[in-house]
Each structure stands twice: as C-alpha cells, then as structure tokens.
C-alpha cells in the first residue's frame, strides 16, 4: 500500500447470510477491496456488529435466516442511535421485502442471484461513500499546492489507520523548511512554492517505498509512516539529497521524528512531539534530523506545566514587569531617556524562569497575547506612577507579538490604555520584531501605520536578524531601529562586526530614523557606538532589567541631574 488516502484504507464489511455458498461468493467478490467478516444468522451478526461497531463501514444482510432474521437485525440497528449509523445493504430476491427493508433503514439492495461483481462492488462503494460523506471529504481533503492531505484530514486518516492496524508500529515524522520566508524574500514567492512542491513530490516517492500518508501546511510536512529499523538512514538520505538545493543559503530542510509512537497519546500530540524534535534543531547546524527522546519528553512535561500555570501565575502576581533603562548618548553625558518593559516569571515551583524559555512557548499557543496585555497594562500604570512621583515622563517601550498584530482591537486597546492612565501615545513605544515585518508585511504595515498616525512611536526590534530588503525597509513605517544585540557583541573585537554596525547606522541615516543599540555591555562598545552616532543605548553597561523599586533610583539620579542642570542654566542666565 502506498500513499494512503481515505480511499485506500481497507474498510470492514460484514456479510450476513445463512448459506455458506452465498457468504463465500460475496466475500470473494469484495475481499480485494474490503476486509470481510461473516455471520450466518442475525444473532451472530449482532454480536459481530457490537464487537466491531467502531470499524464497521457496511453490513450486507440476508433477510431470511434461521435463529434471527434480517428484519430483526434491521430493527435492532434502527433502534440504536450508534448502530443506526452503519449502512446496511439488504441481500434479497424478494421484491416485496424491499419496502419493509427501506422502512427499517436499509440503504440499498443486492438481488439474488447476484449481479456481476462490478455492480456489487459499485453498490458497496457508493453506500460507504454516501455514509461517510466522502464526496465532501474529497473536495477538502487535499492540499491544492501539493496534492498531499490537509492537516485536519491527515489527522483523521491517521486515526482511522490506527483503528485498522492497531498493532502496526508507526513513526510520526515532521519536515520543516527553515527560513522559507528568506527564500521567498530572496528568490521570490514562486520559487518558494516550487521548493514546497518539490519536497512534496519527493515525499510521495518516499511514501511509495513504505506504508503511510502525508500532509502539508505552510512550510511543514507531516508523515505518518510504518516504522522501519533503518528509518534514520532513509530519512537522512532523503534530507541530504534534498538539502543540496539549499546550497549556500541559510535555509534547509530539517526533520523531527517521534519514533514508534505511543498510540495512547492522541494523534495531534504525536506530531507535536515530532515537531518538538524538529524545533530542537533550530540552532544546531551539525545535523538535520532529531528524534523525540526522554530528554525532549521531560522538556514537554515541563512546558505543559508552564502553559497550564500561566493563568494562576497571572492571578497570583508571579509575573513581574522589569524595566531596562535606555540612555540617550548624543549629548555630553548619557541621559536616561526611556525604558523597555520586560516580563519575568517568578514561578512558585521552578523559581525564576527565563523569558527565553517561556515566551517562545507562549507564542506557540497564543498565550503570549495574554502576557503582552499584562505587560502593557503594568507599563502604562508605571509610567503614570513615575510621573506622579517624580514629575518626569519616562516613556516605556513594550513588545508587540505577531499574534497581536492580527487583533482588530489592538489600536483601540492602546488608545484606551493611554487614556485610562492619563498618558499620551508618545509615552508608550511599541516594539515590533523585524521578522514579523517580513512574515506579513502588508498586514503589519497597515496596522503600524495606523498606530503611528495616532501618535505611537514604533521601534523595529532585532534589526539585522529578519532579512528585510533595503527596498522593503524604505517603505516601512518606523521611528527607530533597534540593532540586534548579536551585532553589538563583537564590535570592539572584530573589524567585520564593526563595519556591519556602521552599515546599519548608514541605513538608519538613510531612512531618517533613530538607532537604539541593544546588548551594550562595555564602555568600549558604548564609545564606538557614540562615534558612529548611535542615539540610544540599552544594555548591561548601564543596567540589566530591574524591578520598579530599583529603577526609581535611576530616575532619582536623572531628576537630580536635571535639577542641577536647571540650576546651572539659571546661574549662567543670572
């Protein structure tokens, strides 16, 4: 059996006839396309039906039988909500029996002597198709781009396959094209599509060599295939052959395998596990294949725990907003100009959890939006408190996740937020990662342009890591570029890194936007950035992210500085 679809999985048909010859003959006709079980009277039939009710696709039922006749069977099925869904074709030579059979729920008839096998098979097939609504399924089960299954139907077929072959050892395999967005950006979307189709074709060839099925969504392919002891060898060969087309690029095809799946785990989870293995390769360029193992299982359990604890932690205030100051370095002395709000999780069981651990996790399941809203609320209230306490405005920047961009109430939420706290839109700065821009530039440009028109200040976060084209950058509605910290890291040690940052500064100048450098840790880095006319600096050199009670000391210092400056100016003027 090759690339399995709903048509290919052998369905189970029950043949009920008291005559051995009739049973055998009918079974012989349909056996090639169906799995067949038999019963020689109504009583036996009902026993078989109960036993196989979840699998049974059709019953071929004789009417006149000893012990219990077919009418009684039909009546019993009709009276049972669950069993009445199994279609029944009545086997009869009696015209008079047909009306009664229809009344009792039969869907069709096969007359005796039997018609030619083709006719019988067509009737059997049609009855099953009608029953399963397979015409509708056919129209929506295939991915248009590749001809593979769509994800929803793929899951259904996996479940059905398991029902028929419960003892078969199966592997859940996930293939992912890393950086497909980059391919689309550099080579055009048509080329990206071509790559997806090529991979799909190669997967079909792979499926021809084994038993299984596959689906595609976005840049990911799932395969549910019969386990083979040399599966690593087969998949590695597949990856190696395919990855040759990605030569000299940062894109590649990677594969995660959940080997010999645990069939007690639901089918979605089996593929999430394969995907976990796949995602574990993100920063590992030594191999393109990874297996779901005990370590990943432990990680999965930990992550599940975190996800389920989010709401309680929000209620119990285990999430805290820290603030990292940003200093303006354009003047003689660095001056506190603003801050970035960063979430921290003081988990009651696991202690302080790095946002690097829980944010990607929350991004996967959409919970990040809940956290973002929490941070926005806290940050706005904090700006208000500082103003009330020190008569100073320290604007705070907050992160916008990809999912937030799709929220139709985003703008209203921010307007309400500033209104409720008596702030102006300029007091809240919004950070959007560069990769979000490249993922869906049209949508994001529209949203961000509208926010800017209302007065919000937009910073492009992680600039340099999202592969924007210069052409695209010139069209983006932004007020500042935040240089990714990995570019800053080596500027004092490495000429190349320094030139790279110089280049980015030139881009910012060309775009007429200010520059914020993140991850500045040393005085030397700070000096170099100042020489390059960088406007604002954020990093451990000035301060790590700190809680509000510590941040207020920085504000107090700034207030003193302003006071003394004011005095100096007053002294000079007098």
């Amino acid at each position: 059996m090759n690339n399995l679809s709903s048509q290919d999985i052998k369905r189970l048909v029950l043949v009920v006839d008291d005559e051995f010859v009739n049973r055998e003959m009918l079974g012989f006709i349909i056996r090639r396309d169906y799995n067949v079980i038999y019963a020689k009277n109504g009583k036996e039939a009902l026993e078989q039906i109960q036993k196989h009710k979840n699998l049974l696709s059709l019953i071929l039922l004789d009417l006149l039988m000893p012990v219990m006749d077919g009418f009684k069977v039909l009546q019993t099925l009709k009276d049972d909500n669950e069993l009445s869904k199994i279609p029944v074709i009545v086997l009869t030579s009696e015209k008079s029996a047909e009306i009664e059979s229809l009344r009792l729920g039969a869907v069709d008839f096969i007359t005796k002597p039997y018609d030619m096998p083709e006719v019988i098979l067509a009737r059997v097939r049609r009855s099953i198709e009608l029953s399963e609504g397979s015409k509708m399924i056919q129209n929506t089960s295939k991915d248009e781009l590749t001809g593979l299954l769509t994800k929803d139907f793929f899951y259904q077929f996996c479940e059905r396959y398991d029902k028929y072959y419960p003892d078969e050892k199966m592997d859940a395999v996930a293939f992912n094209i890393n950086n497909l967005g980059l391919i689309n950006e550099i080579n055009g979307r048509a080329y990206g599509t071509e790559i997806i189709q090529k991979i799909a074709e190669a997967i079909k060839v792979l499926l021809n060599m084994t038993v299984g099925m596959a689906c595609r969504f976005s840049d990911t392919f799932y395969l549910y295939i019969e386990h083979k002891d040399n599966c690593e060898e087969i998949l590695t060969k597949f990856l190696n052959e395919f990855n040759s087309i990605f030569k000299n690029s940062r894109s590649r095809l990677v594969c995660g395998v959940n080997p010999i799946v645990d069939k007690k785990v639901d089918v979605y989870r089996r593929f999430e596990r394969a995907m976990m293995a796949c995602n574990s390769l993100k920063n590992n360029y030594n191999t393109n294949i990874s297996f779901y193992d005990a370590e990943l299982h432990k990680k999965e359990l930990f992550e599940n725990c975190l996800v389920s604890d989010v709401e309680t932690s929000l209620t119990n205030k285990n999430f805290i907003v820290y603030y990292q100051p940003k200093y303006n370095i354009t003047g003689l002395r660095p001056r506190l100009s603003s801050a970035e709000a960063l979430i921290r999780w003081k988990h009651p069981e696991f202690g302080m959890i790095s946002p690097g651990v829980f944010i990607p996790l929350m991004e996967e399941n959409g919970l990040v939006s809940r956290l973002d809203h929490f941070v926005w609320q806290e940050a706005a209230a904090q700006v208000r408190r500082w103003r009330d306490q020190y008569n100073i405005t320290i604007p705070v920047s907050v992160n916008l996740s990809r999912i937030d961009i799709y929220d139709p109430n985003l703008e209203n939420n921010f307007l309400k937020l500033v209104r409720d706290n008596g702030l102006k839109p300029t007091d809240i700065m919004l950070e959007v990662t560069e990769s979000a821009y490249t993922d869906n530039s049209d949508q994001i440009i529209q949203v961000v342009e509208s926010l800017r028109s209302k007065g919000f200040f937009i910073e492009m976060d992680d600039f340099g890591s999202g592969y924007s084209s210069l052409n695209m950058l010139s069209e983006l509605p932004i007020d500042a570029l935040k240089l990714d910290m990995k570019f800053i890291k080596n500027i004092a040690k490495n000429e190349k890194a320094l030139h790279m940052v110089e280049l980015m500064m030139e881009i910012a100048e060309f775009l007429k936007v200010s520059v914020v450098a993140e991850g500045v840790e040393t005085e030397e880095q700070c000096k170099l950035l100042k020489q390059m006319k960088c406007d604002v600096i954020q990093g451990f050199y000035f301060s790590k992210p700190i809680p509000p009670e510590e941040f207020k000391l920085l504000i107090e210092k700034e207030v003193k500085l302003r006071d003394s400056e004011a005095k100096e100016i007053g002294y000079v003027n007098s």
Partner: protein
Amino acid sequence: MLTVDKMKEMGCNTAEGLGRCLNNEMFYLNLVQMGLKDENFAKLEEVLKTNDLEKGFEVAHGLKGVIGNLAITPLYNAISEITEELRARKQIDYAPLLAKIKENRDKFLAEL
C-alpha cells in the same frame, strides 16, 4: 469430474456463475460442489413430508438463492418452480416437483 465445460454442456449459465467468482474456476467448482451437497435438499424433502409449507418455502427459497448464484440453471429452474408453489402455500402434491429437483441434482452429483 465436474468441469465448467461439462456444466455448460448440461445447460448451466457458467459465464454468469463463473463471473460471480471473478472467473476463478477452482473456487467456482468448489462452491458448486458445496451447493449440490447443501443439506437443505434433504431438509426440503423432510419438511414437506410434514406438510409444513411455511418452513418448506423458507428452505426452498434458500436453495434457490444458492443454486441461482451458482447458475446451475436446470436445477435452479426446478427449485424456482417449487418455491413459487410454496410461496403461495399451495396444498398440492409436491412429490413430482421434488422428484424433478432430485433428478436434476442427481445428474450433477453423478459428475462429481
């Protein structure tokens, strides 16, 4: 030994019978042998001796289905005849009809 050709010669619609067995001769001939030895032939004689026409109809009807599927035409015709009389629950002497069935059946059995 009963063959498909022989059956054809004896008036059977073997194309139909064989077709129902996906043209698998061996399978078909096995079923024919089973059909000819069906215990319902003896049962039919038995129930008609007690004049149980209802039961007689059930048995004859079952035989008609089997022999019809196997396309043993001369025997099928004889069984159909008695089935129709029994369907109408006619109080007639069924011996001649039974004899006709026996005569036809014996011809085939002799070939086995």
